[in-house]
């Protein structure tokens, strides 16, 4: 869970009960008969899994690979470089969620720009950047609107209010991404090993899970919409493995305490008024058709991409970084030769080492670069061979 999110939940202690977790793992051991590869889609889930070492507690047959659900990680380099070009302008106050500041662009990151005098401000909510716009009528306020479907209602509301209230000096640089097309793209990849998914609980809080049903059917994979506490993850794994063992491929909801099948209709309505679906490039993954949101034409006066002509940028990605393969679940962070060596949170080479939701950062934060060797050795005997050529 990234710092900009705060989830206030009852039952937190219950959903972290260790005794109960052991029982769920026991049940998993009892029912599993062969190796299965599961992907947790969301970076918040990756964080919980690595933090509590859930992947090491599971029976050897069940392997978890980490998915692309880290919004900061998948924001394309072109978009980051565009953000930097806009933030450099003296007439601009550039507002962003905090975890975007250290994400490397081709040349620098936002923090470096800030130290060189650019007015870059961290906001907790897009609404805060609207307040900054009201307080600074002589400046152009640009908010970096990144995120998955979970963040779309908040960002849509900021744009909506700016138009309603005639806040003309407020615009957004939109780089929204959508989960279902990414899942479909992973399943279509020839390198794919994933046989079942822990679906993204908070994305589905907004969108519901109807749109996952045709994916489960078409690709014959179970998708279990799953929460973020350790027991949520374990139950999600159990429900997925139960389906796999029974030869089923359905969408199930492990997280009914917040997710409903139809999602949050009020939020969907405003999101659809403000945003339109578009093709989107994902960092490390490439372009995925219909996998993003852009502003609708009616809101063009608040569209930073249109307002600030940014010339073609020649982007450069460090060649050593394999974050694209990590985001697709093909590789793990410790497969990267730079992990924990040239690449650390203090000097990240790729975006997956920056955000708390990034797999590389989570592996590093919980010491996996230290005990790597032992664990690799322990797992080697049982790991599933990827079907790469």
């Amino acid at each position: 869970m990234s710092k900009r999110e705060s989830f206030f939940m009852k039952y937190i202690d219950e959903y972290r009960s260790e005794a109960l977790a052991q029982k769920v793992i026991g049940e998993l051991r009892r029912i599993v008969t062969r190796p299965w590869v599961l992907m947790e889609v969301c970076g918040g889930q990756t964080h919980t899994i690595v933090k509590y070492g859930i992947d090491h507690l599971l029976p050897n047959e069940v392997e978890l690979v980490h998915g692309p659900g880290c919004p900061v990680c998948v924001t394309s380099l072109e978009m980051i470089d565009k953000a930097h070009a806009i933030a450099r302008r003296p007439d601009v106050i550039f507002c962003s969620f905090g975890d975007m500041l250290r994400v490397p662009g081709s040349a620098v990151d936002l923090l470096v720009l800030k130290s060189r005098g650019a007015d870059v401000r961290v906001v907790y909510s897009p609404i805060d950047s609207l307040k900054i716009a009201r307080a600074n009528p002589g400046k152009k306020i640009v908010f970096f609107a990144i995120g998955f479907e979970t963040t779309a209602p908040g960002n849509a509301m900021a744009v909506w209010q700016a138009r309603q209230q005639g806040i003309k000096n407020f615009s957004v640089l939109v780089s929204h991404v959508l989960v279902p097309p990414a899942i479909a793209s992973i399943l279509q990849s020839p390198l794919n090993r994933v046989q079942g998914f822990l679906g993204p609980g908070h994305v589905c809080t907004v969108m519901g899970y109807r749109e996952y049903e045709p994916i489960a059917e078409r690709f014959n994979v179970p998708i279990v919409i799953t929460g973020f506490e350790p027991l949520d993850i374990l139950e999600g794994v159990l429900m997925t493995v139960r389906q796999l063992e029974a030869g089923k491929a359905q969408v199930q909801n492990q997280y009914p305490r917040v997710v409903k099948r139809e999602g949050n209709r009020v939020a969907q309505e405003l999101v659809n008024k403000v945003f339109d679906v578009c093709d989107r490039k994902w960092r490390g993954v490439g372009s995925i058709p219909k996998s993003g949101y852009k502003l609708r034409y009616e809101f063009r006066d608040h569209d930073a991409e249109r307002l600030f002509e940014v010339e073609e940028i020649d982007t450069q990605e460090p060649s050593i970084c394999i974050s694209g393969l990590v985001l697709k679940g093909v590789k793990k962070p410790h497969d990267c030769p730079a992990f924990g060596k040239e690449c650390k949170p203090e000097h990240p080479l790729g975006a997956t080492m920056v955000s708390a939701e990034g797999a590389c950062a989570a592996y590093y934060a919980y010491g996996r670069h230290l005990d790597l060797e032992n664990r690799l050795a322990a797992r080697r005997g049982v790991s599933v061979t990827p079907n790469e050529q």
Partner: protein
Amino acid sequence: MGKANFGGIVKQVCLEYTPEVNAGDYVLVHVGFALAKVDEEEAARTYQLLEEMAQLAELETPDV
């Protein structure tokens, strides 16, 4: 707008998307917006299911 208590820290939260929320409810908040009311019955039921399953697992596999 409403006020939400995050384990002691009180913050402003936009309630536009959750018109059904009343004072005292638990909500899921993301970037300053309440996105869902936490369904306490479901929360209790999921937990209870897990507990029952645990008892079952205990009966069937006493050695784990």
